[in-house]
């Protein structure tokens, strides 16, 4: 495969890795903060899945990039502007309703996305997708149940869930944005055409929202920019935290 193609696949793997890493990081913030011990363990399992997924994508990206790049140089030595995760992943963890709603919206998306990525012409991406898909099926089962429990629980839980969804909805259109890089890779059979997933995603979500007794709002406001490094203010703080040791003691092995 040509170097140009490799560069593009690296960038693609890198962005998928960034999505997973930032999401895993946010979930890991729940450790010792869950509403009860069983849920603490369960959320940590999900966080571990995402960190594992991030490592798979980033290791692959690093291999393609070469020149001494590793999963860790990618994770720890890039600044905010070079990070390419979608904005929805970097929003602070919020309360349990926010975390649940985000997880659910993403699980429905990832189920579709990973299913499609299993058919990628790139065998590494397809293999990572296959492993991740198993995890996501389980995540979705959990997050969907939580949507129903919170939506049909108390007035307070329903209200918190509704609020969370409204705070999140404007970040969902970005999940379906296809830029020039992805357009290229789609035509090569490597990347997933996200735009084509939106309808199925929406109808799956609507069904669950309906069962949960919560309105699925239309995205009347839309924020985007993650893929080009145009992030929210939250990401910088996340990275300051995550990269502190590596930045304070550059060039060391850990």
């Amino acid at each position: 495969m040509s170097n140009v193609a490799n560069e593009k696949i690296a960038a693609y793997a890198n962005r998928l890795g960034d999505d997973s890493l930032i999401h895993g990081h946010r979930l890991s913030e729940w450790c010792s903060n869950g509403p009860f011990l069983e849920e603490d363990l369960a959320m940590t399992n999900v966080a571990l899945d995402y960190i594992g997924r991030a490592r798979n994508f980033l290791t692959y990206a690093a291999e393609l990039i070469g020149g001494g790049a590793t999963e860790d140089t990618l994770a720890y030595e890039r600044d905010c502007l070079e990070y390419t995760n979608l904005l929805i992943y970097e929003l602070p963890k919020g309360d349990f309703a926010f975390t649940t709603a985000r997880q659910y919206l993403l699980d429905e998306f990832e189920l579709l996305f990973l299913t499609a990525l299993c058919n990628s012409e790139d065998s590494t991406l397809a293999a990572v997708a296959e492993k991740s898909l198993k995890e996501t099926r389980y995540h979705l089962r959990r997050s969907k149940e939580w949507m129903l429990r919170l939506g049909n629980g108390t007035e307070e839980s329903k209200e918190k869930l509704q609020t969370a969804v409204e705070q999140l909805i404007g970040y969902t259109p970005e999940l379906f944005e296809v830029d020039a890089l992805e357009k290229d890779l789609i035509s090569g059979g490597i990347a997933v055409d996200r735009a084509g997933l939106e309808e199925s995603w929406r109808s799956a979500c609507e069904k669950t929202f309906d069962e949960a007794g919560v309105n699925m709002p239309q995205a009347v406001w839309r924020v985007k920019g993650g893929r080009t490094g145009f992030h929210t203010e939250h990401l910088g703080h996340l990275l300051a935290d995550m990269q502190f040791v590596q930045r304070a003691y550059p060039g060391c092995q850990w």
Partner: protein
Amino acid sequence: MSQSNMKLYEVFIRGRRGLDHKHVGSLHAEDSEQALEYARDVYTRRGEGISIWVVNSSDICASQESDCESFYDPLDDKPYRHATHYQLPEKVNNM
């Protein structure tokens, strides 16, 4: 304010095919589906199981210590049920 309404479940796990389900502990959950999921997250973090049972603790009917004499002792006077009861010639002792 509490988890007082969450129920206590006993968890049993089959480690691999051919083994019995074995009691491993308990956990709190709202219903049996949730108990199954938590059992997966709590008790099989290292892939310890291929099958999980959860049982509402309050549904377990346990024998009482005080019943012991009438419950188990009558079963304990039949040594002929055990293989070691039969002394056989050396040659066939692996039977």
